């Protein structure tokens, strides 16, 4: 892989008078676990939506896995996986049926059966395969959603607040899986507001009021705010400036 897998150049998104994302630029390398941190309203969800081709930027440009988000949003969608904050799968379908459905949606073709088996075991949900998705625990739902989003081996996966409302043991398993995917070369972009998770990112970007205020490894970001500061301190301070 030569060059960054995601590149955002001066992304701007305005809603009426509100500038939700204000000239944000960054580059993400293949296989990175990249964190996006910021209080509510900082612009991280809007940034992700633009990168997924769901929203076109007011100005600026971005490429994701070689596809231009403005000119080729449909191509972008074939090359990314996306897992929304709210459980977005069919509660009245079984685990296996949800996986099969997304295998069809992503046109896996002849390998579909094999990919479904892969997802069941890689996501540690093989024993739930016949259960309706609506009856799963929070952690299992999360992993099923990740399985559906990675069904087609996308080079880039977006995870929006993936561990919100999930118990610590399930969170640990989830991070384990994310590291495994990353080791296989998948780029993971994760938003979170659990500060203890921030240390797990290879690199992270801090957003505040639509602006990118810091980017780098967790240590670099911490240092940019001064000595002996924790990420949590920075986050709390950011949140205060908002309210």
């Amino acid at each position, binding site marked *: *892989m030569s060059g960054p897998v995601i590149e955002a150049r001066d992304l701007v998104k305005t809603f009426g008078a509100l500038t939700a994302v204000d000239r944000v630029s960054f580059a993400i390398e293949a296989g990175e676990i990249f964190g996006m941190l910021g209080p509510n309203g900082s612009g991280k969800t809007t940034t992700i*939506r633009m990168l*997924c*081709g*769901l*929203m*076109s930027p007011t100005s600026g440009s971005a490429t994701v*896995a*070689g596809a231009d988000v403005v000119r080729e949003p*449909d191509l972008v*969608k*074939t*090359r*990314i996986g*996306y897992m*929304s904050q*709210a*459980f*977005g*799968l*069919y*509660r*009245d*379908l079984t685990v296996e*049926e949800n996986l*099969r*459905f*997304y*295998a*069809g*949606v*992503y*046109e896996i*073709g002849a390998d579909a059966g094999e990919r479904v088996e892969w997802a069941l075991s890689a996501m540690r949900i093989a024993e739930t395969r016949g259960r309706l998705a609506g009856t799963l625990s929070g952690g299992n739902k999360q992993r099923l*959603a990740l399985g*559906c989003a990675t069904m*087609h*081996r*996308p*080079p880039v996966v977006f995870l929006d607040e993936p561990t919100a409302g999930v118990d610590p043991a399930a969170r640990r398993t989830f991070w384990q899986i994310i590291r495994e995917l990353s080791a296989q*070369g998948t780029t993971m972009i994760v938003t979170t507001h659990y500060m203890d998770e921030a240390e797990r990112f290879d690199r992270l970007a801090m957003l505040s009021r639509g602006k990118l205020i810091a980017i780098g490894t967790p240590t670099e970001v911490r240092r940019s705010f001064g000595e002996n500061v924790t990420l949590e301190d920075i986050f709390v301070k950011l949140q205060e400036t908002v309210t």
Partner: protein
Amino acid sequence: MNTATAALPAGFLARHFPERLRAIFWKEFIQMRRDKTTLRMMLGVPVMQLILFGYAINTDVRHLPTTVFDQSRTQQSRALVDRLAATGNFRIGAPAVSYADAIARIDQGRARAAIVIPPDYAQSLKRGRPTAVQVLVDATDPTASQSAIGAAQLVGQRTNVEILRARAGLTSNVPPVDVRMRPLYNPALKQALFMVPGIIGALLSNMLIITTAIAVVREREAGTLEQLIVTPLNRWQIMTGKIAPYLLVGYVQMTTVLIAGSLMFHVPIRGSLLLIYAVSLLFITASLSLGLLFSTLARTQAQAIQASFFVLLPNIMLSGFMFPREAMPAFAKALGLFIPLTYYLQTLRGIILKGVGIEAVWPQTLALGAFAAVLFMLSVQRFHKQLE
């Protein structure tokens, strides 16, 4: 890039179109099958409505409860009452003791008609003097009263003709001009024959519009739409997937009513079944698309259901389902032209009752096809693929 999806030519994606559609059809079918309550309703309601409309809403009004105030009390007056009763329109009940009593009985709803015969009825007839018989009919319900009025007039005319002929000394009982009516297609003038095709149409459109009206909104509310929207599925595929399973439901409902209609009401199917199913495909698609359109306009399931109720009433009132379009004022009649059911009913009645072929119903078929295409395109257009 190591993925198979990298840099695929558009033609390759196009050839893969069916796999996505297959996935979406399969998923919608499973969901439909698991929703047992809705499924039972979709199959049970048609039969219930057929029974309800077929038997209960019977506009062949016969046997009106009738009171008689017979002041003549003669053989002649009794013969007249018998003649009226023999038409089947009047069921003679308790007699009235006075004119006021007769009116009171109608006022109170104990009788719907009253026959008032004057004291000198028999005498006047004998002496060749004109006499008047009054038939009072409760006309609050015009349909119910009309056939009774018609029958009474006919009895009056026949009686007059016989009396005049007797006075003229004619012995032959053959009237000079005999106007013979021959009702075509429905010789027994059975209301059910007219109703059953109507029920198929009204039922299909009402059920299908409501079912699909909630289809997209439900996914939006459940959060599953957000997940679908980030996939390469395009809006045509999502919308086609939404209506496909219900095409089958529509066909099952239609077949149920056709079979039940022929068993319970002996509705004959004179035309081609194949043509019925072909035209129905267009009508079902139009109804489903209209429901989808409501679904894309509504934010909640409740709104979607309210929107679909908006068309249910015009469907029944303006389409010719219950009231003949010929009798409507120009404005209502014109409004009816914007309802797919109007065309479908004409087509169905034509094929089922008259046994006509496509040569007689092609304009209506064309209109249904146009409705289906335009409504489906509109709903796809309205379906915002992008999240606001």
